[in-house]
């Protein structure tokens, strides 16, 4: 097969292909209702409210969580004083009708200083906020009188979505779009523009408004500069609506093979031997074992952006292996030897590790999930508790991202929230401990990776450990009440035990290096030595370690290296920005997170803008809506463009680029300058909103 051969031109215009290019899939949305809490000055989940979805046919999909928890989800926000419960609609009815009513029961007051008052008016998207409303007596805030029932409020809604664009002459060779490309999105006739930023990075959280009974359609047109290397007739553009699992393409619904793995098991039950789907068991292997070939199969399908997911998957499976090694958890969680008085084989790093995790800043990883797991589409947010409002803590981000990642990839944690609070020591149940332990492990990993290049002294695990010294630990239940040390193997019920077991595995085996003087952390059943059992040989094979290095270590190092500030929460590139709607949406609003969208994608044409003759003299070019001035040069030049508004209240941007690789992106109506060489095609794009006019007023060409 030659890479560029088009072997069946007779099928290019086949009717079935043409129709498939416009294939659509149902839209599923995720909804969250939030309310402005004047007591905490924060948006918080709207507690215990019945939310009815009113379809266009008048039928309602009602209000309470079903027994399976699939239509509705309940997530308890952390913090002992916050009674809010966030209820989410996981799946809308078909028909893409977004007519909602909020028919509220009373919000439990809890410790909220105020309650909520709903009007019964239809509020367009920009006036949803109740921030400025007053209660009886003109009391400021968002109030409703005690005991009053809610009125009925009907909301229009918005949708946040993200695109990850790739293009290819052939589907097999997808290439990320360059930076600076403008995406025009037409939603119900309203056109929006957004731009790709960094090379290959997705456009995130493009939010638009929709009104009740609107059908939401996306029409995407892409302006691709003339590029002789692109065979436009054969061009395929893939649009990935979120980078986790959902692949919606123009005319294509691509399901990476890895989806098969993910979707084949809806949840992990501790003690359930059938962790892995049957097809991933090597023939004749003991149930639950993982072969090198299996891992290779897993990772071979992981795109670079999915490596961290692959890492999560790896650890999920790794943990399962070690879950079976009860000795590890037995020791770590304080088994008989601990109870007998601190044995040398107990991993004493526990307190130090524990100190790294600041649970006072806990949050909630709100991971929405399609009702049907097989569709495999997820979108998530990290919702930080009030203590994090001033600035999300990095540890929290890591922790909650891990939840999101876990949920995305494999583990359905939606039904497993035994209490609003939990801790490293919480003795809950195996499934919950596993879920939280994994997230804590990831936080540990990011915060204390044992490599001086990637963490500072503050979070150096060994530093903390040596300064704090080993301390006895106290087992507490999920309410924080002390419990007796667990019996043997009670580590199954303790999230910290799982976290530490995973960390031990990481340090000893995956990272593959123990610092001088440092003992191995993973110990065999009772003899205090390292794991030597034949059953664990697979984790020590060079191939497995190579996988770990490539797909886990490198990915994590890269992520950590790229994200060193606390406010960076897209560390995993899979977490929608915290409360992305906060800046746009009102105090009471449903936040829609797309799970999958109905995209009648089509590309009408790959247009180029009007071209101004090369080497044109400085002059004025008035462009009513948008336009492009394109210039070429016979010698090196620097081209400077300015733009100005013609009509007030216009938003516009001027972007200069050369040969599709971004040179300069300026903010609205700034100037743009770029250098072009003889083979460059420099372009200046002026984009103006639909109501405004602007023009490029000056073009200076300077030979350089």
């Amino acid at each position: 097969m030659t890479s560029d051969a088009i072997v069946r031109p007779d099928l290019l215009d086949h009717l079935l292909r043409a129709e498939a290019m416009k294939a659509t899939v149902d839209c599923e949305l995720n909804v969250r209702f939030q309310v402005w809490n004047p007591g905490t000055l924060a948006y918080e989940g709207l507690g215990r409210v019945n939310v009815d979805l009113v379809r266009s046919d008048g039928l309602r999909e009602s209000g309470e969580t079903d027994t399976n928890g699939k239509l509705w989800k309940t997530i308890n926000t952390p913090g002992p004083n916050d009674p809010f419960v966030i209820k989410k609609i996981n799946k809308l009815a078909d028909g893409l009708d977004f007519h909602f009513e909020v028919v509220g029961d009373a919000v439990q007051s809890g410790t909220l200083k105020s309650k909520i008052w709903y009007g019964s008016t239809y509020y367009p998207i920009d006036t949803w906020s109740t921030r400025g409303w007053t209660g009886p007596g003109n009391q400021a805030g968002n109030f409703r009188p005690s005991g009053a029932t809610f009125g009925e409020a009907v909301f229009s809604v918005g949708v946040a979505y993200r695109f990850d664009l790739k293009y290819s002459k052939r589907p097999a060779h997808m290439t990320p779009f360059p930076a600076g490309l403008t995406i025009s999105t037409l939603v119900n006739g309203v056109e929006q523009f957004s731009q790709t930023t960094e090379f290959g990075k997705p456009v995130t959280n493009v939010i638009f408004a929709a009104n009740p009974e609107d059908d939401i359609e996306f029409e995407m047109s892409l302006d691709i500069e003339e590029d002789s290397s692109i065979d436009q007739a054969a061009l395929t553009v893939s649009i990935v609506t979120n980078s986790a699992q959902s692949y919606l393409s123009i005319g294509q619904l691509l399901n990476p093979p890895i989806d098969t793995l993910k979707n084949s098991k809806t949840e992990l039950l501790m003690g359930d031997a059938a962790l892995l789907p049957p097809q991933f068991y090597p023939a004749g292997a003991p149930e639950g074992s993982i072969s090198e070939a299996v891992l290779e199969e897993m990772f071979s399908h992981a795109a670079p952006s999915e490596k961290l997911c692959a890492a999560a998957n790896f650890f999920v499976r790794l943990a399962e292996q070690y879950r079976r090694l009860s000795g590890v958890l037995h020791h770590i969680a304080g088994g008989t030897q601990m109870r007998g008085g601190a044995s040398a084989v107990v991993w004493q790093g526990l307190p130090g590790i524990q100190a790294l995790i600041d649970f006072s800043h806990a949050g909630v990883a709100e991971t929405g999930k399609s009702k049907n797991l097989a569709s495999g589409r997820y979108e998530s947010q990290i919702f930080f508790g009030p203590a994090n409002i001033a600035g999300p803590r990095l540890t929290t981000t890591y922790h909650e991202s891990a939840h999101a990642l876990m949920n995305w990839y494999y583990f359905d944690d939606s039904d497993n929230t035994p209490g609003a609070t939990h801790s490293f020591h919480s003795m809950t149940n195996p499934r919950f401990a596993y879920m939280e332990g994994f997230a804590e492990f990831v936080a540990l990993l990011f915060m204390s990776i044992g490599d001086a290049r990637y963490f500072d002294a503050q979070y150096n695990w060994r530093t903390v450990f040596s300064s704090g010294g080993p301390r006895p630990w106290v087992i507490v239940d999920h309410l924080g009440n002390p419990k007796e040390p667990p019996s043997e193997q009670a580590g199954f019920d303790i999230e910290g035990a799982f976290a530490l077991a995973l960390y031990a595995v990481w340090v000893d085996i995956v990272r593959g290096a123990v610092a001088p003087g440092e003992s191995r952390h993973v110990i065999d059943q009772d003899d205090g030595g390292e794991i030597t059992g034949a059953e664990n040989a697979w984790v020590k094979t060079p191939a497995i370690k190579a996988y770990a290095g490539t797909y886990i270590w490198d990915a994590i190092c890269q992520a950590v290296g790229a994200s060193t500030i606390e406010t960076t929460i897209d560390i995993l590139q899979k977490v929608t920005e915290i409360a992305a709607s906060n800046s746009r949406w009102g105090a009471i609003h449903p936040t829609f997170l797309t799970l999958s969208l109905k995209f009648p994608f089509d590309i009408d044409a790959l247009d180029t803008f009007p071209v101004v003759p090369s080497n044109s003299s400085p002059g004025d070019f008035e462009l009513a809506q948008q336009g492009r001035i394109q210039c070429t040069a016979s010698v090196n030049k620097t081209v400077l463009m300015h733009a100005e508004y013609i009509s007030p209240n216009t938003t516009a941007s001027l972007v200069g680029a050369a040969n599709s690789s971004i040179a300069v992106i300026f903010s609205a109506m700034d100037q743009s300058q770029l250098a072009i060489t003889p083979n460059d095609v420099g372009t200046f794009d002026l984009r103006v909103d639909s109501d405004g006019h602007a023009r490029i007023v000056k073009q200076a060409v300077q030979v350089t």
Partner: protein
Amino acid sequence: MSSPPPFTGYVPRFEMPVIAPPPANYQGALLDYYQQLEIDLGLAMSGPNNEFVDITLAKAANATNSIPVDATLFAMTGGFVRHYPNGTVVPSPDSFTSPPEGVLVLTVWLEDIATQQRAFPADTPAMGYIYYVGVDQTQTSAILRTETAKMSDAALRASWKDQQGAAPAAGTTLDDLIDQHNARVMMGLGAVFVDGGTPIGKAAQDPTTSVETYRFTLRMTGGGNPVTYVSPVPIFTGAPYYDL
């Protein structure tokens, strides 16, 4: 009568399941060819995960010619074909029951699978089983008989014996053998091997419309797990580029 077994000199081939491409000697523009058919082709995603495709064919309302709608179904690849009549359980991921119109099942030939795995993009699953749900059984039987008739005498006699419990008696004609095996194919008891692109049936007519409309649903399995449904949409859209 003789026919080479499918295993010798076999050439994998891919075709769309409906609407034949222009004949080899067609000289005009390919787009014109398809457009002059004036077929109103509908395609809708269905199934629990949008992995099924409902396909309808009708003459375009504003058609300017009288070229009839050809609802012939084609084997997308080579492989064995069976028909499962109304009420029978179709071997499939969800073991669905055949509707009254019946289901054609194409078991993709291994060499085609291997070829797809080599030629398809990494994220396009190779087809394993292809289900044409909703066929005109009378016409399908007639179409399949053409293929059944190409089978070797030995195979037909073996089928006869499987069905009757004894070898064909004296006086049994070749047509008898063909008819019986074809009946077995139509009952899901036997299969006939076809090359990719071979006509294997005809979509059922939709009785609910006054306009002559044909309708069938295409399902297929594929990917690393042969018992998982996959969407054929990527295959439709990428088909011209698959170097099979």
